[in-house]
């Protein structure tokens, strides 16, 4: 393994940890709004770290471009859906969790 591989492995594993955190948040958090918060971490940071980790290993710049495009699309989708669901939940009077 060369230094590139170590960097890539570290990024990929960190990304996977964010996915785990997102799933745990989805399962453990008490209401829609907090679950939304957990979910977007997996979408944005988890996939982002994975994309960067794979881009380090990519064989050409076009692959890097495609990986970044995929990440950008997921970012846009995650942000928009989070906003739509959060405002929809507020409109419908889904109550926020209070400790």
């Amino acid at each position: 393994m060369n230094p590139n591989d170590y960097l890539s492995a570290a990024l990929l594993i960190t990304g996977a940890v964010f996915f785990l955190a997102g799933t745990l948040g989805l399962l453990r958090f008490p209401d829609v709004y907090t679950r939304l918060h957990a979910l977007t971490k997996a979408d944005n940071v988890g996939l982002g770290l994975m994309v960067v980790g794979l881009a380090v290993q990519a064989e050409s710049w076009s692959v890097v471009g495609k990986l970044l495009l995929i990440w950008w699309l997921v970012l846009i989708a995650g942000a928009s859906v989070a906003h739509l669901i959060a405002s929809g939940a507020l409109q419908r009077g889904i109550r926020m969790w209070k400790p």
Partner: protein
Amino acid sequence: MQPLYLALALFLLLNLGAGMWRVLRGPTAADRMLAAQLFGTTAVAILLLLAQATANAALRDIALVFALLATMTAVAFVRRAWPNREANHESK
């Protein structure tokens, strides 16, 4: 590196399976939708890992289509199928 890619893909698949509990449990429709959204992102990550592990560039195109269509179900849910008075049924 290949075993690491496959191990991480398996790990993400297990994550996805654990998230299934939220789909079954709810309680609101929005919660189930959120889980589906996370599944989409997880599937993109799994495909990218498999593309690297099996050196099959076509899998990145599948991930691209997934990422592109990730909003469709959720937007259709918010715009069409979300009932107006769901909060009353939250206890179910």
